[in-house]
């Protein structure tokens, strides 16, 4: 066993030398050169990132400001909406920076558990609806009225929808009443799920290019509108309470006042980032600019945020003031 021992000894020596060298080599690099500007200690900030580009823009602009101006250590956990809410309740997420309604979750987490707080509007207006590619609106002008949808149903037939027209839906996490709408408005359509924002955008792109019909769920604010002016199909007007019972919805989606959410624990922590999040506010156009940087120009979200922040010092100043 002498051999085994000496092997062990060598390994020990090697590890010891390694530790020694690593320990003494830290002198050359200055601690945290980017440094915090204010005197306040920010600490960690965990901004949930939901799966659409507009959201990414909100998150990274806030995150960029928090990092550079407040010295926060920002991380961006990728989570879906519901998971983000649950994460705020359990303490693994600090904030959601673009929330689309979710009355059931508001009730559960804000009203009952009181583990989440409303941090005010983002300034953005959320619109959900059914859209067709521009060429269709030109060729069939009356298609923007839901009443003529049945007339055109056969145009929208695909291999997925059988003998009905296809209505393409998006990511499964998105807020949607489409199945109920099709049923209650007696439309000869079948909801087919695309699965993601990507599949929606890809579908619109190829529909416009190949002049094929497409009717799909989509939403604003959305960078893709700067590339293609999709046309909204008008459903029966939204009235208060017409969507109260999910099974009986027969009206268009409401216009959402998008808002921010903040975890109770984080709100009470006294972090300067809490103020920043509460004061953050911009417009759909602002968001679309940043989203376009990311999605169309292929910039990294951080670079895109930096570009916008550098170009809009006044707005940023208002959030910090």
């Amino acid at each position, binding site marked *: 066993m002498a051999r085994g021992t000496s092997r062990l000894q060598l390994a020990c020596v090697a590890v010891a030398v390694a530790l020694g060298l690593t320990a003494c080599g830290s002198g050359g690099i200055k601690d945290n050169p980017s440094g915090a500007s204010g005197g306040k200690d920010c600490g960690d900030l965990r901004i949930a990132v939901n799966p659409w580009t507009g959201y990414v823009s909100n998150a990274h602009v806030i995150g960029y400001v928090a990092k550079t101006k407040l010295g926060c250590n920002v991380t961006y956990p*990728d989570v879906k909406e519901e998971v983000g809410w649950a994460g705020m309740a359990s303490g693994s997420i600090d904030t959601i920076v673009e929330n689309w309604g979710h009355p059931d979750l508001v009730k559960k987490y804000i009203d009952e558990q009181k583990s989440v707080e409303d941090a005010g509007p983002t300034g953005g207006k959320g619109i959900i609806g059914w859209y067709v590619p521009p060429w269709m609106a030109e060729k069939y002008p009356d298609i923007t009225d839901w009443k003529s949808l049945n007339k055109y149903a056969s145009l929208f037939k695909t291999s997925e929808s059988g003998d009905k027209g296809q209505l393409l839906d998006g990511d499964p996490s998105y807020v949607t009443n489409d199945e109920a709408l099709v049923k209650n408005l007696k439309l000869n359509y079948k909801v087919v799920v695309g699965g993601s924002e990507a599949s929606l955008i890809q579908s619109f792109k190829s529909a416009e290019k190949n002049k094929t019909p497409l009717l799909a769920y989509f939403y604003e604010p959305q960078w893709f509108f700067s590339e293609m002016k999709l046309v909204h199909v008008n459903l029966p007007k939204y009235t208060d309470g017409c969507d109260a019972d999910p099974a009986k919805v027969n009206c268009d989606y409401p216009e959402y006042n998008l808002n921010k959410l903040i975890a109770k624990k984080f709100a009470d922590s006294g972090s300067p980032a809490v103020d920043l999040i509460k004061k953050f506010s911009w417009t759909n156009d602002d968001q679309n600019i940043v989203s376009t940087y990311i999605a169309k120009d292929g910039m990294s979200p951080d670079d895109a945020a930096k570009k916008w922040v550098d170009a809009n010092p006044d707005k940023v100043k208002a959030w910090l003031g």
Partner: protein
Amino acid sequence: MSTATAPPPAPPDRTASASKEEQPYVELGKKRHTGAKLAGIGIFWLVMWLVFHNQMTRALGLQDTTPFHEWLNGIRDWVQLHGPDNWFFGGVLGFIGDFFNAVFEFLQKLVSIPAFPRPVPEIGWLGVVALATWVGWAVAGLRSTILVVVTMLLFGVFGLWQDSIDLLLVTIIAVVFCFVVGLPTGILMARSRATSAVVTPVLDIMQTMPPFAYLAPVALGFGIGPTTAIVLTCIYALPPMIRITEHGIRGVPDTTIEAARSLGLTRGQMLRQVQLPMARRTIVVGINQSMMAALSMATIAALVNGPGLGKDVNAALQIQNIGAASVAGILIVLTAIMLDRTTTAASERSESMGRSGVASVSGPGVMLAGVVLERLPRWATEEAGKGVRQPRLTSAGRWLVRGLWLIPTLVLVYFSRQQLILAQFPTRDDWPFLKYIDGKTVTKLVNDFSNWFIDKVDTFTLALKNDLTNWLINPLQNLLAESPWWTMALVLLAFAYVLGGWRPVVTTLVCEAIIFGTGLWNDTMITLTMTIFATVLVMLTAVVLGVAMGRNRRADTAIRPILDAFQTIPPFVYLIPALALFGASRFTAIIAAVAYAVPIATKLVADGIRGVSPTTVEAARANGSTKWQMITKVQLPMSRNALVLATNQGLLYVLSMVVIGGLVGGGSLGYIVVSGFSQDQLFGKGLAAGIAITALGVMLDRIARYAAERYGR
């Protein structure tokens, strides 16, 4: 008692010559009439379909739920509310979670993220590359080392250093865990039939269960973040480690075991001195397999906010950026190749461990060894046996040489702590030449190419999709999904019986009951349609490619690397081009599944073809078989076992991609699983869909396995 003088009573019915060797007792085979029975089932099915078309299909709307789903929701709510105070969720799982989190964070600060208050990790990129290089060289030799250096440098050049390293960390932590848990379990199973009988079915289910099925429950138990990713990865990577360890220990030849027993070894001695050393190579293969599995799961775990390159692929998918997804994809493939080659080389070498010095101290080691060998102390060298000219290093000697090489490595680590440029990977701003090869350049290249390509062919591919869907998928789906549920249940039972006998019937019945209980019968049938269709495509492709590879060495060398790449590339990466080519549809989901399952099936078929005894092939050639006759009458029938195995594996792989298909229009169970971890009120339904997929998988696997047992030889 027999004696020498009394002749044994020879049975009168045997002649002297016939009785020399005993004829074994054989049961006579019966004719099965499988074809006729299948046709009968088919007719029954068609009639029922015509009569009860679209009735009792148990279809469930997208947003609709059943009481069972609500019940699962209730459990979820309970765990969310009371979990932290519960001994199990808060205590046990909480502890495991904290442990993995702590380990991960520690390692991250060491090598990947800024270690506060430093603006950079404790060890900069140069140090990490140097250490990885040293490890690669020490365990696997020079060739793997070059691969390690190139891969790790590309992490930085492509601008994804941190995510790449994070992915490696998750993988390595999971593999270490799998090793620590899997090795003893495997040993125990090899040595105790009872343990094996208990654990094997658990492993079966773990391996049949598509990873997505347990994303949601694991995320519920461990929250989101690195811990969940690590736990998921462990669940996925553990079975191969255990299985291969068991196989390795059991694989030690009986003759050796017997010889050792005759020397009077105790069980402990047998394990330490015979079984473990002789199974060493197989165990390293187990580590290799476990590592590959871990890597692919660690990528998928991005869906529950797992750290690493999977995030980049996911993010790129959201903005339709094929180029960006490819850059991350390339790094994942490179990581896989790096880990694979390194562990493979390590396993090849472990066989010659403690053997000829030349094999183990290769490359620079040899040069160095040549210089210092003469001056090494006694314990470091020894006389080689006859036929080996130079003296060789003992084990300790080799470690000495390795130790010497550690010194320059540590110097580099030291520098990486001193210089910012050596700590944080330079970008094109620092080193202008990088702009020709960095991530942005590659992204743009890939995007330009794919846009051009898609633009050229998409009308054709979309038409292809429409035709195939309308003429093949839709009729099949109508038959499966529009038959009453009880018809389908009976048909499946009948198939199970005809193909596999009574045993799979029981499993099928149980699985059907489970699927029915989940309330997702109709969706399961749609998923089954896609699975069948995809499996058929997989097998067609696999047979064509596999026969070519099995018969022709050059075809093999050409095709195999492509298969390897497809096996390691995360499926998300090719979802975007598939989407662009085929639109959001079930067909796209099928294509994704086929792309995922073809490599494994093809390799199995190729191995089967190659495994046909050369004597048989020679005999057939001597009989004047043509090439076509050779393939259809000799090689394919004789590799029937491999074909059946390939079908089985192909099926399971296809099934595990079903959920990914949900992201690109596949709908049905896959989409429901994805909805489950997206929408609060659909959590239970998603979980139920996961259960349904697992039950479907177990059912198909069992039928295929018993059918294989019957028809496979």
